[in-house]
C-alpha cells in the first residue's frame, strides 16, 4: 500500500537557507534540520526576488545537497524555460517545481511533461483567501500578483497541461503554525486526480494527520516546524502511524 509522504521544503535566498513567515524571509533559524534518513522527499526552492540574481549560488547549494540526498529531490524557483529545467536536473533534481513561470506561460508545463514525463512536473500554487467573500484566489510572483483564477481551476488546468503533482500553499498560513488551510487543500485535492501536496501552517504533528484525513493530501509538507522543535521527523511519523496514517517508518 502506498504510504503518505512527509516532505520538507527548504527555501533559499541567494544561496542561503531561511524560513518564511507570510512569504517574507526570516533568517533567525538557518540551520539545516533535515533528517534525511526519515524524510520521504525534499523540495528545494530558490526564492531570490532580484530577477537579475545569479542563479549559480542556488545551483551550487543543490549540487552539494544532492550528493548525500538519497530521497527524491524536487527543485524550483524562477523556472521559465526548458534551459532552466535542464539546469535544475543537471545539478541533481529529480523533478522540478513551477509556479509563476507556468502562470505567465502555461505551455511550460506541457513542454516539461513531454520531455521528462508528467511525474517530473510539480505545479506549485500559492493561494490567498478572498477579501470579504468566500473562496480563494491564486497569486503568483511571490504571492504579490493576483491572477483571477481559483486554485481548483488552476490545478485542474495544470493537470490537463501535464502536471504530475500539485503543491498547494496557503499564503495566510505561511509561518503561522496554526495548521493547514484544510478547506483550501480539500478544494484542490477534489479538483484533480494527481497527488496533492499541502504546505504552510503545520505547527504540530496533529496538523499532519488533519491534512491527510480532512485535507485529502497525499503528502504533507513543512518548512518551519523543525526550526522550533528538538524532535525529529521520525517522531512525527511515529505519531502519524499511531493515528492510523500509513507512513514509511
Amino acid at each position: 500500500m502506498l504510504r503518505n509522504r512527509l516532505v520538507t521544503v527548504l527555501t533559499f535566498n541567494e544561496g542561503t537557507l531561511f524560513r518564511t513567515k507570510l512569504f517574507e524571509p526570516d533568517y533567525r533559524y538557518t540551520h539545516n534540520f533535515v533528517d534525511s534518513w526519515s524524510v520521504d522527499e525534499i523540495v528545494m526552492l530558490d526564492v531570490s526576488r532580484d530577477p537579475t540574481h545569479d542563479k549559480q549560488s542556488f545551483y551550487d547549494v543543490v549540487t552539494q545537497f544532492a550528493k548525500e540526498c538519497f530521497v527524491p529531490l524536487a527543485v524550483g524557483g524562477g523556472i521559465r524555460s526548458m534551459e532552466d529545467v535542464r539546469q535544475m536536473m543537471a545539478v541533481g533534481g529529480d523533478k522540478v517545481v513551477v509556479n509563476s513561470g507556468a502562470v505567465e506561460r502555461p505551455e511550460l508545463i506541457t513542454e516539461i511533461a513531454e520531455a521528462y514525463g508528467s511525474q517530473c512536473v510539480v505545479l506549485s500554487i500559492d493561494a490567498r483567501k478572498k477579501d470579504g467573500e468566500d473562496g480563494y484566489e491564486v497569486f503568483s510572483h511571490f504571492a504579490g500578483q493576483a491572477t483571477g483564477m481559483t486554485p481548483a481551476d488552476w490545478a485542474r488546468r495544470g493537470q490537463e497541461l501535464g502536471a504530475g503533482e500539485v503543491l498547494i500553499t496557503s499564503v495566510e498560513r505561511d509561518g503561522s503554525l496554526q495548521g493547514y488551510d484544510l478547506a483550501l487543500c480539500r478544494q484542490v485535492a477534489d479538483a484533480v486526480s494527481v497527488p496533492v501536496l499541502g504546505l504552510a501552517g503545520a505547527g504540530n504533528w496533529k496538523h499532519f494527520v488533519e491534512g491527510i484525513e480532512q485535507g485529502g493530501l497525499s503528502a504533507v509538507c513543512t518548512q518551519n516546524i523543525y526550526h522550533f522543535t528538538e524532535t525529529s521527523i521520525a517522531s512525527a511519523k511515529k505519531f502519524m502511524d499511531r493515528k492510523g496514517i500509513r507512513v514509511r517508518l
Partner: protein
Amino acid sequence: MIGIIDYGLGNLTSVLGAVTKVGFDGVISSDPGELADCEKLILPGVGAFPEGMANLNDRGLVDVLDDQVRQRRVPILGICLGFQLLGNNSTEFGETDGLGWIDAPVTVLTPDDAALRVPHVGWNEVLQASDCVLFDGIDDGALFYFVHTYKMELPSGGVAVGTCDYGGRFTAAVQNGNVFGTQFHPEKSQQCGLALLRNFLEKT
C-alpha cells in the same frame, strides 16, 4: 567503470551520486566508445518514452547497447523509464518501440480504485516474486520510491522478480539473464535502494 547512459533525460546526477556512495566509479556518458568499455551499464529514468527512445537513436547508442548487452552479456540496470525502455513498446504519447529485451508492453497505469491517484508517487512495498541477486539481504516487502504513470505487467515470478500493488499488481523489478530493471528508483530509496544498487554493482 560503471557507465551511466546519458540520453539527454533523467536524473543522471542522482544516479551517479548513489553509485559513488556505494563505493564504485561511475561515468555519465553518451559516447558510444566510452560506453563500449564499461563493465556495467545503468540506463536511468525520468522522462517520456518516445523522447527517450528518440534520444537513444539520435545519439547512436542503440547499437553499442545492443552489442554490450546482447553480445558481450554486460549487466545492465534500467531504472524507471530506463526499465520501461527495456520492454517491447509503449503507448505513452502514441505507440513507440522499445529495446525489446524484456518481452512485455508498457501501458498506462489504471488502478482499479478511483481514489488512487495517478501518477503513482511515493513509497510502496515491493514483493519479491522469485530469487534475484538484486534483493540479496533486502526484506521482502521493503519500501521503495516510485514515481510513474506507465507500467509493465508480466506474470509474477520468472522474469518478473518483484511486484507492487497499486490498485492492481504490476511489475516492479525484472531480471532476464544480464538484463535487470526496476520500476522504482533505487537511487532515491534510501538504505534499501542503496543496498539494491550495491547488489547490482557487486554481484552481477
